[in-house]
């Protein structure tokens, strides 16, 4: 019997090919985070030796870690794929949204508007996302082909049945689908793939020394976009990031794992979920993710 990782690869590759066959204008969301990196590698393998028949898109809050943006640009250049950047800053400048203010402000929730505007502008009808069902309770409920109405909304109470390996992508003009080809991968599966196929990642996934401060019981990195408040002391710690998102709401964990092997060992015995450990945005309410997803978030 085949290994569980190969089983996941086959499932994901099949979904990616199915979307390329059935939709007019797919796009793959690529943030430079590990899940989207794995998804992009799977897409490359799904069509090899041909090139990926769709572009990739990054919704950039303008508050990302410099290492991640540098990696993003290098990665798409190496793979020869077309990158579209949806800029939250541009949405702010054009008056579509108002920037958030204050020491604890995060542009993370603003991304939804830029994402939906970019989807409409390019007339994308299928948007690949690297969400995994093991990440969060609302995501555990979502279909692989997830319908979005013309407002970009998800209706969790009225999801289409999804049986066997037959996917229904029928939609009206202006509606689209979010497609989650790595729904069934766990954090450990992602790292196993990265280890087995030598996948390059942004450096901040590996343990390094950086100035951080304690906020809400998490280590936040000092960046141009996030400064400590008066009572928050900056210290230098050995840390790494388990997830990579907007720098204002993504926390680091204490770690000495400098290699993929170390990370797998660390992940195998982790007692806290990756979003629980590192995402301030999920802590807002019991249904934080469900509410954001309903209005069109990733």
């Amino acid at each position, binding site marked *: *019997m085949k290994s569980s990782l190969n089983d996941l690869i086959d499932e994901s590759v099949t979904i990616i090919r199915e979307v390329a066959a059935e939709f007019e204008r797919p796009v793959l969301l690529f943030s430079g985070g590990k899940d989207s990196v794995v998804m992009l590698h799977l897409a490359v393998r799904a069509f090899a030796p041909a090139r990926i028949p769709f572009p990739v898109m990054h919704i950039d809050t303008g508050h990302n870690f410099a290492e991640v943006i540098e990696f993003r640009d290098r990665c798409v250049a190496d793979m020869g794929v077309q990158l579209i950047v949806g800029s939250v800053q541009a949405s702010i400048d054009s008056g579509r949204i108002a920037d958030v203010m204050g020491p604890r402000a995060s542009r993370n929730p603003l991304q939804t508007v830029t994402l939906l505007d970019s989807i409409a502008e390019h007339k994308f009808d299928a948007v690949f996302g690297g969400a995994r069902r093991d990440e969060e309770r609302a995501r555990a409920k979502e279909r692989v082909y997830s319908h979005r109405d013309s407002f970009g909304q998800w209706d969790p109470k009225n999801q289409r049945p999804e049986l066997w390996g037959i996917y229904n992508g029928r939609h009206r003009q202006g509606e689209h689908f979010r497609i989650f080809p790595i729904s069934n991968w766990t954090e450990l599966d992602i790292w196993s793939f990265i280890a087995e196929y030598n996948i390059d990642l942004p450096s901040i996934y590996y343990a390094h020394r950086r100035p951080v401060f304690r906020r809400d019981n998490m280590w936040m990195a000092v960046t141009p976009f996030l400064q400590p408040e008066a009572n928050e002391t900056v210290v230098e710690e050995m840390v790494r990031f388990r997830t990579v998102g907007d720098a204002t709401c993504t926390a680091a964990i204490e770690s000495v794992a400098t290699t993929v092997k170390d990370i797998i060992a660390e992940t195998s015995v982790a007692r806290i979920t990756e979003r629980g450990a590192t995402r301030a945005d999920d802590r807002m309410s019991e249904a934080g993710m469900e509410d954001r997803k309903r209005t069109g978030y990733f």
Partner: protein
Amino acid sequence: MERLRFATVGSVDDGKSTLIGRLLYDSKSIFEDQLEHIEAVSKRRGDDYVDLSLLTDGLRAEREQGITIDVAYRYFATPKRSFIIADCPGHIQYTRNMITGASNVDLAIVLIDARTGVIEQTRRHSLLVSLLGVPHLVICVNKMDLVDFDQAVFDRIRQEFEEFASRLDLQDVTFLPISALAGDNVVTRSANMPWFEGSTLLHHLENVYTASDDNRIDTRFPVQFVIRPQRSDFPDYRGFAGRVAGGVLHVGDDVMVLPSGLTTTITGIDSPLGPVEKAEPGDAVTLLLADDLSITRGDMICRPNNRPRVSQELEAMLCWMDDASPLQQNKIYSIKHTTNSARAKITNVLYRLNISTLHRETGVSELQMNEIGRVTLHTTAPLMFDDYHQNRSTGCFIIVDEATGQTAGAGMLLSPRT
């Protein structure tokens, strides 16, 4: 390491969520922040105990009502296997969601409350598991602690179930007496039921033999995507990508392409990880062929002497899932089957299956949501298919309402009744 996909079917009252919580907890797959979270919520609500169902019931509406509405997927691993749980709702109103979760699993767990025995819901769930052709069924007789761990109770429920199940097509049924709340026979053997000589639930999940569940005899390869690089370094590459739906394909095999009926030879097989010599059921590969034939998405590659049926006249068990409108005879729907699509009319409803009594109700022309019937269909183009019991992948289809886009029906193809 192998992977097992299994479904748990039932409602909170059956102890289903407690059972999943127990499996996750005892296999150390619940994380501290998840446990802290549900502890806090349980405390805030004034519950007497930590409500493990909060782990799986992830939607606001589910937590409000204390029921499971839609399938939730959970993941855990032991040193022997990794597992995907499709945690399915049990209520009749959400049958379509249950079918979503149970359609592609290797094994299903149905819970029976030891105090009530086999009830209508048990029969309905077992029937659906049987119709979906799930290869392995585990009947967990739960809450044994509430009947004093009495062997007579377990034996009576087992006998009751077997009488009913003799009319179903169930291939492998295992009975386990458990207490999900206390953990008896879930991960560790029960000291309270020395009379039970079988294995624990987790041991069974780790060891159930699934290697023969796939059809490895009848070669079926629905063409999904044609790969033609527009690159100077691969001027002549033309590959046919898809997922093996049956049989084992080797480099050098003679194959036939349907519907054209033309034959050729496999000259190469590319997997996502590089060239391979053979491809087995479930493998996503690209086939390279000796001859330059016209092959497109929706075609079926098979062996010349072992072909699927090819027809525009179909007979199937159809489960209706559209809450907006019932199945209407002679209305035109879209049908999706393997990588093929066509349009279809339901020409006749032969009978409606009463999913509680198994009675065949004739003289029916419609199927309402969550009803199941045996129907005949006529399609605009021939489908290449097998009996669902021979091959789940080539024997299943969905019906799509062309106006709303809804997935309106799920069908399992059968040989016509003679």
